[in-house]
């Protein structure tokens, strides 16, 4: 048998070192390119950046809102704090489905246990995964955990694959052709797009006429979404969390009477409150000629602050919540949030004054 000399060992080491270095270089290159190629959601469509912002929020949250645009555009978390000392966070994103909300609650419980969870019921009408782009906006921002894995499994449409979520570069590699300056600027750091999950708009477009509701052949809310609602109830119960079901005060998409009855029955059976704010628009003080920015689909800052004021009153009168304005270490964290909130408001108002419309937010800011 040939004796292995030191020279042989050196040659072997040389080759192995080259291979190891090569694997490392390939891994770093792919890691960087993945970061570069995934959408950043920094301008225009910012909804995809909302979910991940939660992990940067340092203050404790006694109230967690779950839902779609009916919560993240309609409830000002800063108003809740400023008026009532409620420290809250909205874990919501575009067309967030019921199972998204369930797994986001599971995910939230890995970090903190809130006193109250508020779930907006509009998404109950969806019993099937809807579209990849909305899935992505919710799921890509979630931190990796079993909850994320399960959320992906529950959400994938027919053309999606788990591997594309694990390695997003496989899904987004073809974006090399459409990279913008924003992509290069935000490879490692993202700009903040919400204040504790609230997406602000200060512009105004009065509520218009909505199309008449289309009669449905079957008004039964889908079994799958109701099942996940039950799981939300159970999860809250297991963790001694008070759950409130709400329907935001916006009228479109249409919320059918029959759906309302089913949710009310469900709430009664499970002993949780259900408040349909559509019927309380006057009590909230909403003036839909000034409190919406997109003809009534969502509230603007004025409307979101009014709604927060109303819902905050309910929260402090029904639950034993801490007034965090009196807790200095939390209050100082909130000061930063308020500063961001005020600066954002001022920046939007300045643009409105200059152009008559927002240029850096919403549809005008979408990068092509």
């Amino acid at each position, binding site marked *: 048998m040939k004796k292995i000399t030191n020279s042989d060992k050196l040659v072997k080491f040389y*080759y192995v070192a080259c291979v190891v*270095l090569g694997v490392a*270089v*390939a891994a770093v290159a792919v890691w960087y390119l993945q970061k570069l190629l995934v959408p950043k959601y920094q301008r225009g469509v910012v909804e995809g950046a909302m979910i991940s912002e939660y992990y940067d929020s340092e203050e404790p949250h006694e109230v967690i809102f779950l839902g779609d645009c009916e919560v993240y555009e309609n409830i000002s978390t800063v108003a809740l704090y400023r008026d009532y000392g409620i420290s809250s966070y909205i874990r919501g994103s575009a067309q967030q489905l019921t199972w998204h909300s369930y797994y986001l609650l599971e995910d939230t419980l890995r970090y903190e246990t809130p006193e109250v969870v508020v779930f907006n019921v509009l998404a109950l009408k969806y019993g099937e995964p809807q579209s990849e782009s909305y899935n992505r906006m919710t799921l890509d921002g979630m931190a990796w955990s079993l909850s994320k894995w399960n959320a992906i499994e529950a959400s994938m449409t027919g053309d999606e694959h788990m591997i594309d979520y694990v390695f997003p570069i*496989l899904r987004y590699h073809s974006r090399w052709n459409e990279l913008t300056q924003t992509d290069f600027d935000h490879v490692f750091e993202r700009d903040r797009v919400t204040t504790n999950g609230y997406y602000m708009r200060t512009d105004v477009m009065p509520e218009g006429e909505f199309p008449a509701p289309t009669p449905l052949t079957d008004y039964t809310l889908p079994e799958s979404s109701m099942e996940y609602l039950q799981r939300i109830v159970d999860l809250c119960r297991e963790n001694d969390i008070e759950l409130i079901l709400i329907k935001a005060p916006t009228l479109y998409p249409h919320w059918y009477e029959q759906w309302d009855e089913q949710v009310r029955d469900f709430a009664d059976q499970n002993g949780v409150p259900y408040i349909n704010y559509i019927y309380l628009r006057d009590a909230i003080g909403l003036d839909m000629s000034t409190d919406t920015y997109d003809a009534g689909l969502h509230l603007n800052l004025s409307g979101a602050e009014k709604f927060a004021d109303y819902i905050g009153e309910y929260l402090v009168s029904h639950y034993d919540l801490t007034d965090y304005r009196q807790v200095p270490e939390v209050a100082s964290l909130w000061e930063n949030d308020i500063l961001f909130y005020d600066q954002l408001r001022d920046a939007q108002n300045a643009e409105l004054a200059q152009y008559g419309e927002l240029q850096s937010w919403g549809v005008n800011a979408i990068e092509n």
Partner: protein
Amino acid sequence: MLFTSLPFVLFVAVLVVVYYVFVPHNERWGLLLIASLAFYFFADPKYIIFITVTALTAYVFAILTENYNSKRKAYLKEHKAEWDADTKKRYKTTTTRVTRLLLFFALLISLGILAVTKYTNFVIETINSMRSEPLSFVNVIVPMGISFYTFQTVSYSIDVARGTVKAQRNFWKFLLFVSFFPQLVQGPISRYGDLSQTLYEPKLFDFRGVSYGLLRILWGYFKKLVVADRLVVALKTLTASPDEYKGAFVFVVMMLYAAQLYCDFTGGIDITIGIAQMLGVTVKENFDLPYFSKNIKEYWNRWHITMGTWFTDYIFYPLSVSPTMLKLSKWSRQHLGNEVGKRVTVYISCFCVWLATGIWHGAAWHFVVWGLMNFVVIMASQELEPLYAKFHGKFGFKGRHWYSALEILRTFLLMSSLKLFDCYRNVGLTFRMFGSMFTTFNAGKLFGGALLELGLDRGDYIVASVAIVAVFLVSLYKYIRGVNLRDFLFEKYPLFVLSCVLLFVSIVVFGAYGAGFDAAQFIYNQF
């Protein structure tokens, strides 16, 4: 499991690790068999039945043939002294008939399965085109890679009958030869004599082989995913609306298809050979710079080499030296003169080869016509050979670099125009489109933004062009130096590793896969 799918990549990666880490080196062929059958099973469990029947047929008849041949040789030896020449000749003739009969049955079953599965509907379609009452098509499975593995078993049966290879007595080993998964889908068409040794011998981990294999696989994926699958988008648009894309667009189709087919087919073969190499198995090369050929004959010696040699060895030669052909040769020399007479049998054999080549490529008339067009062009260039020689002698261009480049360009254009049959998949349409290049003058449209309406944007064209230049330069290196670039790179190992990294990253980022792209099958999967 497509070669370009992630499950396939994982399948190969796991196999290589298990192969070298957990399986003793002399048992590794067994794992290859299991992996091959698993690969085939995942494609469709029913395929296993077809491949097993074909393999079993060749296996049994080969043993019967070999046993019979041994016995007759022994018998002949035993009676050598007592028999006169006539008796020996009679005995040989009779026993050869038995051998041929065994071979006939082996080929009948193997080729019968191929014919029924692949060509039944083609025959029905052809009959229907001549009848007013059409026959209905039959629902038959076309097992993946049936043309490839059938040709392998046919060559094995013939080689055993000829006595050039020994019959394999271990069925599982033989089944591995037939089903070896990297080459099952798109070739090359391996011969038992070439593959058996490397397939069954104990395999030790060979660092160089594994490195070469990996680079080759990455190169294959680069060609397939970055070039071929990107260009296919534009080609589909161009050929789907032939009335819209005539004239100069047909030339674009020619160029794009030449690049797409080359990168698709050679990319697939690179992946095949690379996987085999990583597993310590040497598979024959199937391409040798075909686009650097100076004439069509040379082209066919460099393109799909294993298919070409298969047709030469198992159709052309046997046909040329068959008693009927020899008689015909004699007759034609007597009646047509020596010059013409000697060509007759060659041309008939050649015609049969190209007819078979066309049919092998697909059960459709455009393939048949494509095959015969190749025959016509080869024969014409052969007939014009004296004229060329005269021309070369007079002007002395032959051998000059610029003239060689011109010859290469001429051959490339000629072969690319023949490939139009495969693009348009209709004989009449192909001729019409080819003709439109000379009657419709619309080259201006190409530069008026029409190319950007074919499904590819500026970036896609840039990526495809850069990748094609890279493929060309690697080929040019081999053409000029006579060795592969990977040999040079391996000597400078950091460069070798860097090449792997660059290829890997390029494939991941610039590959035409995932959402927005159809995962295109390799073109030769269908054969």
